[in-house]
Structures are given as C-alpha cells and as structure tokens.
C-alpha cells in the first residue's frame, strides 16, 4: 500500500511521464500551506523528474480557476483566486491592525531592502521603536539580511517570502510603484550632505548588540 520514496527512485530509472509529474506537483503543492520552491518539490518527486516543466503545465491548467498556482519569490503555492475572497469571509482571520509606524517601516524595508535601522530612521525622520521591528519580525514579514560592510557593520533588514505571499507579490520587483520610485531616484541611497540631520554611527553599534 505505501511505497517508500527510496524504492521509487531506486526501482524506476525513468522519470514518470510529464502528465504524471504534473499530478505529483499538484498533490504536493495542494498539501502544503506554504510556498515550496522548485527544488523542494523536486526532492519529493521520483528521480529524474522535472518539477519546472510540470509547474508550467500546472500553472496553465489552473489559470482562471477558483484556485491558482501563484509564484511567491522562488516558491509556488495554491491560492484562491482574489476575486472570490468575498465567499470566504468565514475563513478570514482577524488581522492585527498595524500602526502607521509599522506600515511605513514595512514599506521602507520592502522598497529599500537591504536597509539598516538608521536608514529607516533617516527616511522617516524619527527613531524606529524596538516594538515596531519586533512586530514585523514576529509576523515574519521582515528578517535580518547581511551586515552592511560599513563602520559598525550594521545589520540590514529585508522583506521575506511570507511578506510576498501575504501581499500576493511574485517578487519585490512587483511592489506597487517601485519602478516610478526608482526612476524618480527616490530609492537611491543618498546620504545627507555633511552633518545634516542624519543620526549615524552611534546607533549602528546598538543594533549589533540588539541582534546578536
């Protein structure tokens, strides 16, 4: 009844037909609530399978259906079609209302990533409270990126796949208005001339303490 996956990969030297692979990807994606990457899908499939090709077929099959295969970062997931949301009010989770500070901080991280805390503060003109970042980290909408190779080696923040998934974005390039902002130079990292109002070095050290 139950076949061990190893048995399958060992005994079958040929990959299953593509139609069968498509069924497999369908089942795997359906079973999982979180997006799975092509590689993650493939490791579950019999040896020699091509999840990429199966995904192309599968996405096409679900175009215009009540559920769709969506791309989220480097992952794929089944999601209900956005136009049918009204049917699912009973499933809707009570979402925490985010403060203005949290929303703006999130947007700054998403559009400017990777971005340091002091850069966020420079953009908003106020200090970022610990609670705001904690909340966004807790929601798994942001995470720590690589440290900036500047004095103090401050940590950076980046947006996560969960963030993309939550807002139905394929990747960060799909953020609304991101191209206009870039063309207008508003995403440039333009340091303030001279002293200006920038709060810089001191804080970066704090960050190190905070996130180590």
């Amino acid at each position, binding site marked *: 009844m*139950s076949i061990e996956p190893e048995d399958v990969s060992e005994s079958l030297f040929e990959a299953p037909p593509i139609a069968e692979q498509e069924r497999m990807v369908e089942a795997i994606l359906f079973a*999982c609530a979180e997006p799975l990457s092509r590689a993650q899908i493939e490791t579950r499939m019999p040896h020699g399978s091509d999840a990429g090709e199966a995904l192309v077929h599968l996405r096409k099959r679900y175009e215009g259906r009540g559920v769709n295969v969506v791309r989220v970062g480097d992952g794929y997931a089944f999601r209900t079609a956005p136009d049918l*949301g009204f049917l699912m009010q009973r499933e*809707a989770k009570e979402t925490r209302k985010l403060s203005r500070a949290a929303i703006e901080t999130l947007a700054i991280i998403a559009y400017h990533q990777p971005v340091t805390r002091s850069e966020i503060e420079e953009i908003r003109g106020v200090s970022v409270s610990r609670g705001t970042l904690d909340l966004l980290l807790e929601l798994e909408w942001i995470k720590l990126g690589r440290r900036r190779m500047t004095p103090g080696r401050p940590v950076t923040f980046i947006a996560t796949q969960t963030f993309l998934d*939550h807002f139905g974005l394929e990747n960060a390039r799909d953020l609304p208005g*991101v191209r206009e902002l870039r063309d207008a130079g508003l995403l440039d990292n333009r340091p303030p001339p001279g002293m200006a109002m920038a709060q810089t070095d001191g804080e970066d050290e704090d960050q190190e303490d905070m996130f180590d």
Partner: protein
Amino acid sequence: MADDLFSEDIRNTTAERIKAEALVVDVDGFEGPLDLLLTLARTQKVDLRKISVLALAEQYLRFVEEAKKLRIELAADYLVMAAWLAFLKSRLLLPPDPAEAGPSGEELAAHLAFQLERLEAMRRVAARLMARDQLGRDFFARGVPEDVSVKRSVEYKATVLDLMQAYARLRTKDSFEPLHMKERDNVFTMEQALERMKTLIGHAIEWSDLSQFLPDGWQTDPKQRRSATAATFAASLELVKAGKLEIRQQETFAPLQLRAKL
C-alpha cells in the same frame, strides 16, 4: 514663492489661522519633525519638487513659536529641527562665506526637499501596499494543509496485515477468558505502562507532569498510585533511552515533567 504664500494667507486668513492652530494643537499627532514638515509643505500647495525650503523653514519656525506661546512642550527632536532650520535659513539668506567649509545652504535645502519627497512617496506606496489583496483576507491558502502530523506518521505504519495479525494474536491467546479483576487490582506493570505511554507521548508536545500520565482511576488509592507511578516512571526512562521522550525536574523534589522528543 514666499510672497505667494503670504498673499494666500491674506486671502483666507481665518481658514489659515484655524488650520495653523489645529496644527499646533495636534502636535501629538505628528510622527516627528519630518512628518510635521511634510504636513506644512502641503500647505504650500505645490509639487514637492518645487517647494520653497526657505518658506518651509519659516513656517516651521513660526509653528514652534506658536507652540511656545501656547506653552505646549515640544519634544527635543522638534527643537533640534528648529535649530537646524534656523541655521539653514541663515545659510540660504546670507551670501556664502568662502572660509566656511561644509555643504552649501542649497545642498542642504535640496536634501531636505528630497527627504520630504521620499517620505511622501513611501507613504503613498505604503498605502498602495496595504490596499492590495491580502492572504487570509482576500485570498486563501489551503484550509487543511496536510503536512507533518502524528496522524500521517501512524498512517504509514498500520496495514491490513498488521490488523489481521493483531486479531489472529488475540484469537490464539490462551488467556482468552473473561477478565481476572483480582490479578490486576493493584499492580500496574511496566509493560502496561510502556504500552500506555507509547500512545500518549505523541500528544505530549508541552512539558507535562508525570502524574498526568497515570492511568485513569489509579490516582486515588495509594497502593495503586504507587504502582502506577513506579511503572510509568520506569516506562518513561525506557522511552528516554529510546530517544522518544525527554524528562526534566526543575529542582529537587519538584514534579518530574515529560515531553515527547521531536
């Protein structure tokens, strides 16, 4: 630019004054001096790119004066900004001093204008972001994700053959007789405990006291409780050895606690 602003002031003096007072009263509503500057800049009713930073600096300084008059305590960063804007204003108004190093008034003003434009842009896109369809509100993930679960693990291990063998085993038991209540009155064997624990530990995700694992009805009679406790403890040690369970004791004589080892 500044003249335009003043002429407008004259035209709607009352409205403007109410607005200015509202600004003062609402000082708590601002997310810092840059936010306040952005709000003030909007009263210039021009594209932020064409904003008069000088006029803005004056508006801000007037705002701070107004707040002082009303004895509103402004947070330090508002005052720091006021000092900086006063400095900027002097730089913009006075001819550049070649002896003085550092950025020119124009550079500083340009950067402030850039900051305001950028903050407003971020506000705009943040609103657009939040207006998007959101997971769990407008579109949904699978309601019954089928990932790792105890249920699944068990599923793969029980087959029809297991079932038939179990039944066959029962059918060939010599002791296939009505219950002997006397024999098992006060003794809970380790084998029984082990069997019982094996089915229970799957659910013991959280630390729970050993006493909670005693069989029903064995807690009241001291003899039974002792036997059940000893058997359960011995069985727990076996399961720890098998790597299926963790045991801890917070301090000496504190209750023993168990949880499944994941």
